Each structure stands twice: as C-alpha cells, then as structure tokens.
C-alpha cells in the first residue's frame, strides 16, 4: 500500500465502481472511447485492481485516463456491477490532486477547461454561457451557430429567452447573492483550492 492506493481506495467512486472484474470485455464492446482511441476500460479496471503503487502512478501520468467520455455506457453493461467510467473519474481527480496531470498532453488541457467552465459558473452561474461561447472556438456550430453568436440578443430575444434579464426565465442574470453562494460553496468544498493548485502548478511549469 502507498499514498496513491490509499487515496484511491477512499474515493467513494472506487467503492461504487470497482468490484471484481471477470475480464469479459463487455465494457470494451460498448465503450465509445475504446472504438476511436487506443483505450480499454477493461485494462483500466485491471491495472487499478492490481493495487500496485507504481502501476497506479504510471496510469495517473498517462494519456490513457483522459480518453474516456464519461458516458457511463460501461456501467450499464458490466455483469459485475463495475463502472470503469467512475474509476476513471477517481483516477483523474487523483492525477490532478498529485500534479501528475502535467505529465500528459491531455492532462495539461485541465487548465483551459477549468478557466472556461469554472469561470462561467463563478461569473455567470452557468456552465456554458452565450457571451463566452465564441464561434471561432466552435466552427462546428455551423453557419447558424455563427449567426446566433453574432446576433445573440436578437435571436435569444426572438425565441422568448430572458438573456441577462431579471427574474426567472431562460439565461436570466443570476443574482449576485446566488453567485456569492456558489463561490462560498467552492471555497468550503475544495473547488477553489483545486483551481488555485492547478493554476500554480501550470504557472510553475510554463503552461498557459
């Protein structure tokens, strides 16, 4: 046993998602990530089940753990009640906590994700928000996405949204009180600490 194994074992998602694997491969067969990446949820489950500190450290530093799409298709299909997707979530959290996410290209994407998504939550109260969803970053949104982006107030207004308005409704302005509560929750439950750590580690390693 070691600190990585102990921390993983204490994660409730491991308790929920990792029982005894019979290597049937059902999770691999149903997994969208296994289809398009060099990735196998079965292998993840096997490697974690070794409970070997070095093996787990290697996983935490790898690209592999960032390929899962967290669709949880594996959770439905596993005959043993495992949820490899949940195991992945626990591994990713630990990789971030220990700073191993810096070792992989996919892991280093964490800074961009954090800035975008936590920024939206803390500033606007939404995970995704039209004023920060830019067509240039989303060419797949098509010519209609570009049109919506360039004419947001008019288009959202036309369909009955309440973009940045008061009261209830679609995309209403979230009150300062609600935003302050979200920030307090972030402070009390470790999100702020995690964000600051990711920022600091990335800064120290020249990642912008």
């Amino acid at each position, binding site marked *: 046993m070691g600190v990585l194994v102990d921390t993983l074992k204490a994660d409730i998602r491991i308790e*929920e998602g990792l029982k005894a694997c019979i290597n049937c491969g059902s999770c691999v067969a149903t997994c969208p990530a296994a289809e398009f990446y060099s990735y196998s949820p079965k292998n993840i489950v096997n490697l974690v089940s070794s409970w070997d500190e070095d093996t787990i450290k290697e996983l935490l530093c790898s690209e592999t753990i960032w390929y899962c799409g967290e669709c949880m298709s594996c959770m439905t299909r596993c005959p043993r009640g495992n949820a490899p997707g949940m195991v992945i979530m626990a591994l990713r959290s630990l990789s971030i906590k220990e700073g191993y996410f810096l070792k992989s290209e996919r892991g280093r994407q964490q800074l961009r994700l954090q800035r975008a998504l936590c920024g939206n939550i803390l500033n606007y109260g939404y995970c995704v928000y039209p004023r920060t969803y830019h067509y240039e970053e989303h060419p797949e949104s098509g010519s209609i996405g570009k049109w919506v982006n360039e004419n947001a107030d008019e288009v959202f207004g036309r369909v009955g*949204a309440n973009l940045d308005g008061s009261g209830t409704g679609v995309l209403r302005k979230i009150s300062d009180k609600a935003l302050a509560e979200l920030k307090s929750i972030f402070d009390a439950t470790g*999100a702020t600490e995690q964000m600051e750590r990711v920022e600091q580690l990335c800064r120290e390693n020249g990642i912008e």
Partner: protein
Amino acid sequence: MKFSGIQKIWSEWEKEIPDDHWFYVRSCIRQNFFPASERRYLDIVRGNLGRDIFEHPEHTTCGGIAYHNECIPQLTQMTIVGRQFSIMTESGYSNYVCSCVTSFGLYCEALNTWKEHPEIEAMVREKLWESCHREFEIPKSLVHASDLIYHLRHEIGAKAVHKLTNANTGEPLRVVDHVGCHYAKMFPTKGVGGAEYPHVLSGMVEAWGGESIDYPERRHCCGYGFRQYHIKENRGYCVSNTHKKLESMEPYHPDFIITNCPGCAYFLDRWQYVIAHQTRHTYGGPGQGIPVLTFEEAAGLVLGYDPWDLGLQMHQVAVEPLLDKMGVPYDPAKKYLGTNGKAIPRPELPSIIRCC
C-alpha cells in the same frame, strides 16, 4: 394491479411520475443551444396542460459539466445539488424536475450515494450550512423533463393540431430516437424503460401518431464526452461517434430524430453539417440532412406552435421538409427575424447541406 406476461415485464420498467406541482430547474446546455425548448416547455406544461410547475430565479447550474470535466470535486457538485434542493424546499415543493440529462444522472447519483452513505449526506449538509446557511429536504420525486412529457403524452395527443403523420398520405412518420446516456445508463431503473427498453421518447412518438423505428446503434453515445468536446482538438471523438449513429440510422430513412438530451440534439444536428463538409455525404438524401428535434419541439409542433416560436431557426439542418410533410404552416420570410420582427442580418446558407 396484477400484471402478467409482457405487461408484467414492462411494469417493472415503468416509473412513478406524480401528476402535478413541480419544481423546475433549467439546463445550462439547453438554455444555450435550445432556448426556445426551455421556454416552451413551461408554456406547454402550464398553458396547454394546466399543471403547476414553478421556477425560482435563484437556482443555478448544477455544476455537472464542470464536474464531468474534473474541474470541481464531487463534494462541490453535491453541495450545489443540496443548494438546489434547498431552494425547492423553501419554495414549498417536493417534486423535482430537471431539464438536463447530465443533471439528472448527478441528482440520481447523489441521492443513491447519500442513501448508501449517510455520512456523505451529512457532510454535504454541513458544507451547505457553512457556506450558505441553507438546509434542504430530499425530493419525494425526481424526474427528468422528458418523463413529465411522457406522463402527459396522451393529453398532448388529445389536443394535437398536427399529428406525427404525413399530411398527404396519412402514413405515420418514421422516427428514430436517441435517449441521453446519463438518463438511461447510470441508473437504468430511474428512467422509463431504462437502457434496455428505451420508451420515454418512443412512447411520445407513438402517442402522437408516429412510428418509432429501432436501429442498431440506438443506444450508442452521441459522443459529447465532456472534455472530448470542450477542447477543440479532441472533437474528432465526438464527430466519430455521431457519425456511427447516423450511419446506423440512415438505412431506415427516418423523417426525423427525437432526443431528450440537450447536448445530443445539438451534436446530432451540427455534426451532420461537419460530416457533409468532410465527406460530401448527407443522411436525408442528396443535399438533405435528417432534422433533429428536442422532445419539446416535437410536442410544440403537435400542439400547433409556430415553428419559429419553437426556435427551429436555430437548427443547422433544415426542418422545412418535415414541416411540409406534417402540414405545419410556416412563413419562410419570418424565419431569421430578430426580436419583435426586427430585420437582422441573415445567416449564410451552406450549399452542401440544406439549411432552410
């Protein structure tokens, strides 16, 4: 009631859905991509069906997208869930309906975890009190927005202005569905029909006159994948998975796709545009895509709402062929107008896949 045979099997997959008095929380993704569906959902449930469904201005994101991108810890996400429940409690409601499929999975997960681990619920309550001086009660009922429309589908069918049929031939429209993964796969017993017998959408389709078409990759993920989408260079994963689904449904010549997940509807629509550019292939015949509808849009068309009030102008794949089949009237000149009929610049219309 005692059931036997298929009825008995099915009764195990049905879900108890209270009939009235709902506390409603919105979806971040749906508000961004399908704002009219968010708006018309309440119009339909309140206005057309006469139910009490309450929205409180202080509710926020559930934090689910950030959680599934590993940007916030599980305790943070669960405490935000606790805050949402607290607003429900102070509003005097106990039936909780959420519009987001990611949220639905996370609410189910939180309730399941708290049941098995009361110490985690206690920790969430402590953190919520420490941070917001709030307390909450557990909802008596937790459902997704599509469950409620499924429950009310026959009332909607009885008020139908347009059926899901071909107005010329009377034939039922051929409809394929895509049920969101986090609705059906995380806690299959919490969704109508679970993952094996996905009935929440096909039940609506059949109640409104359409024909539900099974296809091999019906249960395959749309490919959103959270960080696989939010990082631009990872998006090959997303389009590859949607491509797999579209290839699988194409031979069945569906008239449209219906979904209950905010992201899935968007991706099934937009990746058709990207695939058309990549491969010059379109899935609804030469130069034509397969229209994709949210379940609110489908319900709205059935109830006679104007297509542009339903936000169908925000789709990339043209919906007009479907409207024509159903005999739904629309004014092409009004499609791309702004608020209060204001003229605004029109979008570019790609030649490779029909948009209007």
